[in-house]
């Protein structure tokens, strides 16, 4: 309390000349300071705070937009995952395998076994057909046709060795 009184006493003392340290102010500076300050305060009152001014509709919609973006991402990933599990996913794509000579620059295209589209109904009926498969029906002609369609001469020669 005594210290605070000392401070106030010092505040009321006439200004110490030493306090200026040789510096000066323009004429009438302290007389006009309060008025200039008032003008600046009034100007600040009239101008909305910058942060408030920039708050547009996006600021208020930000939470909803974030949730929407998250849902859209989730949906996209789900669709991609489901499609990747479907047999039609690889249709039209030609995955490559290493060339027999081991040279990675000579990549060979795999036979395109899904070059046609298969509906779910066709897929299940094909499974049913396989269950009813009768080995006796497999004639030599059918086998030859299959080999001619699906295997190269090189593979057939290698398999027969």
């Amino acid at each position, binding site marked *: 309390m005594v210290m605070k009184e000392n401070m106030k006493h010092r505040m009321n003392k006439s200004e110490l000349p030493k*306090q200026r*340290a040789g510096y000066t102010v323009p004429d009438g500076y302290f007389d006009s300071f309060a008025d200039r300050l008032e003008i600046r305060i009034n100007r600040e009152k009239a101008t909305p705070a910058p942060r408030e001014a920039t708050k547009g509709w996006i600021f208020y919609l930000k939470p909803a937009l974030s949730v929407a973006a998250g849902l859209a991402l989730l949906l996209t990933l789900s669709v991609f995952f489901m499609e990747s599990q479907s047999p039609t996913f690889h249709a039209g794509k030609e995955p490559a395998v290493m060339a027999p000579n081991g040279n990675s620059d000579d990549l060979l295209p795999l036979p395109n076994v899904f070059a046609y589209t298969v509906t779910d109904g066709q897929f299940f009926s094909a499974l049913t057909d396989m269950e009813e498969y009768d080995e006796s029906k497999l004639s030599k002609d059918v086998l030859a046709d299959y080999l001619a369609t699906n295997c190269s001469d090189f593979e057939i020669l290698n398999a027969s060795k």
Partner: protein
Amino acid sequence: MGMIDKDKELIADLKTEGKREMAFQSLVKSYQERLYWHIRKMVVSHDDADDLMQNVFIKVWKNIDNFREDSSLFTWLFRIATNESLSFLQQKKRRNLLSIDGTSEYLVESFESDAHFEGDELQKKLQLAVLKLPDKQRIVFNMKYYDEMKYEEMAEILNTSVGALKASYHHAVKKIEAHFEGEY
């Protein structure tokens, strides 16, 4: 009515909607010169000191409702002024990519180009020595030597111990002596 009571009344008026503007004008008139010289000796340039003093009073205007009166009004004002000035010098240092001693270089340049200095040769030499001190030692030297504050008052404003302030002042005086002897 004692000074502390007067301050309390002033603060109460500042926090009262209808009395705020009058009380604020009274506050500005009472403290502007002391605050100005405190800031001016820290930043040297009159224009910078003027800007900073306006910032200080605007902060007071905006934050008076949050002033809890744990310290005196005098201490609170000087603390805001000191922080504003130090922040200003830090910004200058960052913007100009100045070195550790960069503040001194900037202040010496400001001092040499300042039209508002009318001190004699001795005052000029002393100022140049003071401006070469690190920021904290310079503040302590200014408050002790020029403003003749007590260490206890300074400790309250700068939120540090009396011992640390005495050490800072001692180092500052030694460096200034060395400057006068041509060693610093």
